């Protein structure tokens, strides 16, 4: 009979990591992440959980939850509007699924600006 390894493990080893928002440990200690890294990282922006970024070939995701982040300069002539959306999406749409990255301090102000700069270039 097929022997399976001890099926019951510490609760930490959850599979939903793939989907997710779970924290994991950084192997090589804290180092300043770029805007792109912050946007991709599932412990930081995790924008790829909900947005595709068709103009960045490195942005791998299957999501279809939210509008693709593309042609941002055309769609957001004012950078401040883009910043405001990432800072607190619930302001524009009260039941938005998008986490309030600035308001809830998910990203620091410096990180948020880097993400916005990166996204603005898409």
């Amino acid at each position, binding site marked *: 009979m097929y022997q399976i390894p001890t*099926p019951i*493990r510490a609760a930490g*080893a959850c599979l939903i990591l*793939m989907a997710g928002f779970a924290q994991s440990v950084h192997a090589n200690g804290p180092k300043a992440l770029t805007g792109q890294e912050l946007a991709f990282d599932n412990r930081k922006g995790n924008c790829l959980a909900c947005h595709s970024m068709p103009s960045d070939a490195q942005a791998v995701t299957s999501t279809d*939850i939210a509008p693709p982040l593309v042609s941002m300069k055309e769609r957001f002539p004012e950078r401040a509007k883009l910043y405001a959306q990432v800072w607190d999406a*619930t302001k524009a749409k009260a039941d938005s699924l998008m986490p309030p990255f600035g308001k809830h301090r998910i990203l620091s102000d410096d990180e948020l600006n880097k993400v916005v700069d990166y996204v603005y270039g898409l």
Partner: protein
Amino acid sequence: MKKLIWFLSGLGCLVAAGGAQASPEDDRRSVVQAVQEKYPNIKVEDYVYGALAFSPDAKAQYDAVMTFPPYEAEIDKGARMWNTPFKSGKRYADCFPRAGKDVAGNYPMFDNAAKKVVTFEMAINRCRTDNGEAPYKHSDMNTMGLLTAYARTLSDGMKMNIKVEGKDALAAYEAGKRLFHQRRGQLNFSCAGCHINYVGSVLRTEYLSMAPGQATHWPAFRGGDYTLFTLQRRYAACHQMVRLVPLEIGGEEYNNLEYYHSYLSNGLPLKASVFRK
């Protein structure tokens, strides 16, 4: 006025129209209807497959695993536990109607004397303590988890049949409903945000399953190493994913959540124990 109320309720508008409280049955119907409208081609019976209902590939993989479940030896362990007599000489089968067959779909039920939701796990522990045995911890997958992995198979095919009767039962149901719908924590998510509002959408790589059907198929053996997850352990995993400190497995908040959440699966058939990614 009476006519107006009748008319509005016929349209399912009462909730939107004012503060009037929806009955559990209204809640369940509107949640199911919303999925039906979004995915008219998915049969309601198939909601028990959750995320697999959106992906023929994943469903095929599931079907393959389910033909000869590699975790069958674990369920056998649960069967041995279930069949081993207590020191009293009695068995689990003596504590349940029909020796435990077709009972799991009645849980969680509301105990009006104790004014508490009683989960299947609590009923199992009650059986243990009535027979002079120590209760198991609900979060212990090596005891309670394995035992329910077998005990629930005795209810395979039974339709989920949760009842909410009386004021106290309704209060517990409403508490569970609030927990399901309330946005919480740093990421500001609610269960409903993902499993009601964005059913069938893909979160990075994962299809989001529909809430109705989610309570029917536990425990699940998950991932490459078939880790056993009871339903409440799954709640804790979703909480962890959205960076909330999980609540206590077997505690009142999760029990109330399970009561509301299971009600949404009413009428759908149980199946233990299944494979999930």
